[in-house]
C-alpha cells in the first residue's frame, strides 16, 4: 500500500464527514431544531392547502417589498 492511497482515503473520508458536519451546524444555527415538535408536525400536517397558504404569505411579502420600492422611486411629475 502506497502513501498516496492512505492520503487519499483519509482526506476523502474526512472531507465527506466535514460536509455532513457543516450541514448539521448550518441546520442548528438556522434554528431548524429549536422546536422539536414542529419538525414532526410539519410532515403530519403537510398538505396542498398549507402550501398554498405559504405561497400566499410569500406573495404578500413580495408585494410589500415592491410597493416600498415603487414608493421610493416615485417622482412627482414636473
Amino acid at each position, binding site marked *: 500500500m502506497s502513501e498516496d492511497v492512505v492520503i487519499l482515503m483519509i482526506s476523502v473520508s*474526512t472531507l465527506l464527514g466535514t460536509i455532513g458536519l457543516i450541514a448539521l451546524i448550518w441546520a442548528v444555527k438556522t434554528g431548524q431544531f429549536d422546536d422539536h415538535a414542529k419538525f414532526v408536525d410539519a410532515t*403530519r400536517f403537510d398538505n396542498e392547502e398549507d402550501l398554498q397558504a405559504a405561497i400566499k*404569505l410569500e406573495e404578500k411579502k413580495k408585494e410589500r417589498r415592491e410597493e416600498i420600492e415603487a414608493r421610493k422611486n416615485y417622482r412627482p411629475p414636473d
Partner: protein
Amino acid sequence: MTQVPCTHCNLTFSEDVMIIEDEHYFCCKGCQGVYHLLNSEGLGTFYDKLGDTKLQPAIQVSGDLEKFDLEGFKNKYIKEHEDGLLEVNLIIEGIHCSACVWLNEKVLHKTDGVMEATINYSNNKAKVLWDPEEIPLSRIIETIRSIGYNAYPYDPALQEERAAKTRKSYYLRILVAVFGSMNIMWLAVAHYAGYFSGIQQSFKDILNVAEFILATPVLFYSGFIFFRGAYYGYKNKVVNMDTLVASGALSAYIYSIYAMITQRGEVYFDSVVMIITFVLVGKYLEVLSKKHAVDTLDSIMGSTPTEVTVLKENVKSLVSVENIIIGDVIELKPGEKVVIDGKVTTGQASFDESSLTGENEPIYKKVGNDILSGSICLDSVVQYKATADASGSLLTSIVNLLEESIVKKPRIEQLANSISGYFSTSILVIALLTFVGWYFYADNFEQALIVGISVIVIACPCALGLATPMATLVGISMAAKRGILFKEATFLETMAKSDVLALDKTGTITEGKPSVLKADLLDGFDPALLLALVNTSNHPISKGIKSYLKSEYNVLSTLTLEEIKSIEAKGLSATYKETVLLGGNAALMQTSDIDIHMSTDSENSLFFFAIDNNLVARFELTDTIREGAAEAIKEIQDLGIKIVMLTGDHAQSAHKVATQVGITKVHAKLLPHEKAQMIDKYHEKGHVVVMVGDGINDAIALASSDIAIAMGNGADIAISVSDVVLLDEKPKGIFEAYRLSRRTFRAVKENLGFSLLYNVVAVPLAVMGFVNPLVAALSMSLSSLIVVGNSMRIKRLKFKDK
C-alpha cells in the same frame, strides 16, 4: 342524561345543558362562535388535526385592547425593523397541542398585514412581524382572541433567551469536538498498532498530519471556552479548572506539533481532543440544566395597565401612569388593577388583595380607606385620590425589591469549584517541578518536556469535570420524575446544605381555598337553586360551596336566575320564578330580617342560604390543610432541619394551623418585604434557608432565600423566582427534595473523592515517567466511566410509596 363532547373544545357535559345545532353540540356561545368562524375561514380541518385533545372552552376575552396600541407599550415590547415592519414577541395562552399551533399560525398568516408568524410549540411563544400601516397590533391580538386563545407580550431580551443562546453555542462546539475526536480515534488506532508492531515513518507522518488537521479546530473552536475561562481566571488571579484544561491541552498540542515536525517521539493529538471533548460535555450538562425562565417581572408588569383614567374638572382622560402626580383623582372600574396608591373619595367596592397578603378573601373598602397598588378592584366603580406617584407606589417598590433580591440572591460557593482550584494549582506546580527535575536529572530537554506534559494529561481533569454535573443531572431527572422540578443543577447542592425551612401558610401548608367543613341543611333546601346562585360569583366562599355541591350531588340541573345582585362584602341575591334567593354571611341575614336560629359564632367562615326569607342551610367553611402536611413536616424535622412559618394572615389562624401540623415557630401578619427581612435575619445568623411559597406576596421572600420552592399552581411570579417547583403540590415533595438533594450531594462528594484518589495514584507514576500515550488514553476513559457509573447509583434511592 348522556354526556356529550363539545364540538369545539371536546369537554364533555350532560346533553341538556349544551347548545344544540344540527348534529353539533357546544358547551358555550364562545365555542360555537369559534367553530363557525373557523369553518367560514376554511380552517375546518383543524378539528381533524385536533383529534380527541381537549381544549379550554373559548371564553371571549374583551376589553383592554387599546393598550396594545399605546406609545408606552410600543416602547417596551415592540421592535422596529429597518423596512418599517414591527416585531413583537407574544406568549399564546391556551395552546394544548400541535393543532392549536397550526391554527394560530394559519389564522395569523391569513390576516392582512401580518408578514410572519411563527409559534414555538414547546414554550408557546410566538414571534409576529407585521406592517403597521395595514393593521394595528390590537387587531392582531383580537384575531387571536377571536379563535379562543389569548396572547400577551413578553420581552425577549431576557435571561431565558440568553440561556438558549449559550446552550446552542455549546451544542455547536460539542458537535465539532465529537466529530474531531471520533475521527482522531480511528487514526489513533493505527497509531497505537504501529506503536507495538512497528510503523514506517512515512505513514506515521501522514497520520500525524491528519490528526493535526482534525485537532486544530477542536482545540481552538471547541476549546475556546476554556481559553476564555482561563483568561478571566488569570485576570482575577484565580487558577481554575479552565486554566488546567487550557494549559494541558495547549502544551500537549504544541509539543505534538514539535514531535510531528522533528519526526521524533509520539504525538498527543488524541489526548488533546479527548480532554476538550470530555470536559466540554461536562460543562454542557451544567448549562443544560440552567434555569429556564427568569422572566419574572414581566408577568407582573405585563398585566399592569400603562395608563389610568384620571378625572380633572369632570373630564375623564387616559393619562400615562408615569404622569400621575399626588392628588390626582383616578377612576377605577371593576376588574381593573390598581397601580397607584390612594384614598377612596367616592364609591365603595371589594378589593382582591391576594397579591399582597396571600389571603383570597376580598376586602371591602369605602370612602376614606386606603387602596394599595397591586390589588384588584372587584365589583364596582370607585374614585380615589392618589397619595403617591407611580415610582412611590407599593407595587413599584415591590417590583424594585424583587429585582434587587434576584440580582443579589445569595449563592453558596460550589464545592467542585473550590476543589478544582486547589487541584489545578497543585497539578500545574507538580508538572513544572517534574519538568525542572527531569531536565537536571536526565539532562534532556525533550524528555523532560514529555514527562512534564504527561503529568498534566494524566491528571485528567475529565473525571473531575464530570463529577458534579453527572451526579446532579441524574439527581435532577430523578426529582423530575417525582414531580419536583429543580431549575438548576447547583440548587441540589445548596439544598443539601440547608438547615432552615420557611413555610408560607395559605396555599402552601393549606389548600388556599375554603372548603365546606360542616353543612346544616333544613327543610326546603334545594341544591340546584344554591348552585345557580353561587355560580354567579367568583368569591372564594362561593367557589368552595360550588365544589361541595358538585361533589355531594351528582347532577344538578342548570337554572337561570334573574335580578342577580352582589351585595358588597355580604353576599348575593337573585330571583328564580318569583322566589327570592339570598346567600351570604350573618350580617346579610340580619339586614334582611331573617331569623338565624343557629349559632353565628364560629372560628370558621359561615355562609347562610335563605329562600323567600326562610333560612334553609348553614355552611361552615375553612381552609383545609394539605394532605400529608403534618407527616412531611415531622419527617423534615427528623432530618435536623428547623421549620418556621411566615404568613400574612393574622396570628390567631396562623397559630391554629401551626399547632395542627407541628410547627412551633410562627411569624404572622407579615407584609411581603417583611417576610424577606425575616429570611435575611436567618442569613445573618449563618443559616442556609429554603423558602416555600405560592403567592405574589411570597415572591420577594422567595427571591431572597437560598432555595425557593414554589407550588405548581402558584402565581406565575412565584414560580418564576423560585428554584424548585413542586408540580403535585404535596408537602411530601419538600421532604423528597431534601432527601434527593442530600443523596446527590453525597454522590458528588464520592465522585470528587474518587477522581482525586485516581490522581494520587496516577500522577506519581507520570512524574516518574512510566506513562505512555496508550495508558494515558485508557485510564482517562476508565476514570470517566467510573464517575458516570457512580452517579447512576442515585437512581436506586427508594421512596416509601413506590
